[in-house]
């Protein structure tokens, strides 16, 4: 995700859906700064407008795009319930239609708005750790000399399927999506959070175990060792 402007916001140049209580905005994210989100070439839709629910509007937007209503619109980040790529509302690129968007409404979006805590455990949680994974992370963290570290999950280019998982212990960074766990926190940078939404991290110990294992519902392809994936 992101564009070739590596020095800019990961969502720069990406067509996003920004939602407030009643209104959906769709446009290309230009920047997020000083508590605002700037969209360009944007459209907006309110619940029931033109006889369409927001879910119906998003279903068509995800499939075909939107007609521009604003050259540029500045949104107050504090007003946003979610901010996510429009492509997330499409089942899989290349499909003629998307059951997820057209029949079930939009999925819960990872909250990219301010790097705040992503909520307690539940369906909206971007990543899930099994009890075995939690126990292993706590065991490993206890051996770390530096206090206050969390588990950082991420993705990087590489591997035989295009993307590889990264795991490390690190301090919290500005902009992280934070998932609280029992005794520690999980950190995801915003770009990785897009790819990792919905994953489950498991751990298999013992001689036949494979250590940490990612179960990624977004992956369209994985390599045999499970260490790389494609979306």
């Amino acid at each position, binding site marked *: 995700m992101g*564009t070739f402007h590596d020095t800019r916001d990961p969502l720069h*140049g990406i067509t996003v859906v920004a939602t407030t209580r009643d209104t959906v905005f769709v446009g290309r994210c230009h920047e997020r700064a000083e508590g605002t989100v700037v969209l360009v070439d944007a459209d907006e839709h309110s619940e029931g407008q033109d006889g369409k629910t927001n879910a119906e509007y998003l279903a068509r937007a995800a*499939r*075909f*795009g939107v007609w521009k209503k604003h050259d540029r619109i500045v949104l107050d980040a504090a007003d946003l319930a979610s901010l996510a790529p429009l492509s997330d509302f499409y089942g*899989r*690129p290349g499909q003629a239609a998307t059951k997820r968007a057209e029949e079930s409404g939009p999925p819960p979006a990872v909250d990219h708005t301010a790097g705040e805590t992503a909520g307690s455990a539940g369906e909206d949680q971007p990543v899930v750790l099994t009890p075995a994974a939690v126990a292993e992370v706590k065991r490993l963290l206890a051996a770390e000399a530096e206090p206050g570290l969390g588990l950082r999950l991420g993705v990087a280019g590489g591997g035989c399927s295009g993307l590889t998982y990264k795991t490390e212990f690190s301090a919290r960074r500005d902009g992280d999506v934070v998932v609280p766990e029992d005794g520690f926190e999980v950190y995801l940078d915003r770009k990785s959070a897009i790819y990792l939404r919905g994953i489950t991290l498991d751990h298999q110990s013992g001689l036949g175990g494979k250590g940490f294992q990612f179960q990624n519902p977004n992956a369209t392809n994985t390599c045999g060792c499970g260490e790389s994936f494609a979306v």
Partner: protein
Amino acid sequence: MPYPEQMVAPMRAELTSSGVQELRTPAEVDDFFAQTQGTALLLVNSVCGCAAGSARPAVLKAMEHTTRPDRFATVFAGQDVEATQRARELIGDVPPSSPSVAVMKDGELVHFVPRHLIEGRSAEDVARDLAAAFDDICN
């Protein structure tokens, strides 16, 4: 405002050198759309590196697929403005999007890949999706 031609010439050549027909005028667009029989792909090209940098190689890669449209053409948004406007009128009732890919069958739009399904993705991924669409449409 169009970019200097010397800047976009390589972006044109990337496609035309592989056999994609470039439509520079509304008349050329009309001629392309006048042939309604069979299948055709139209790439709305763009200088935007965020997405067109994947769109062009994706189309070229998809052209290697065994099942493919009969004809491939492109218009250049922001550069050949009138040709692009005419193409958008003829593609069908979809919002302007650049880059984007439209696949027509017997004169009807049957598959559309807007910019937001290209941006941030690799050319290989977009090509794979196009090839899957070709299998559905062009058999």
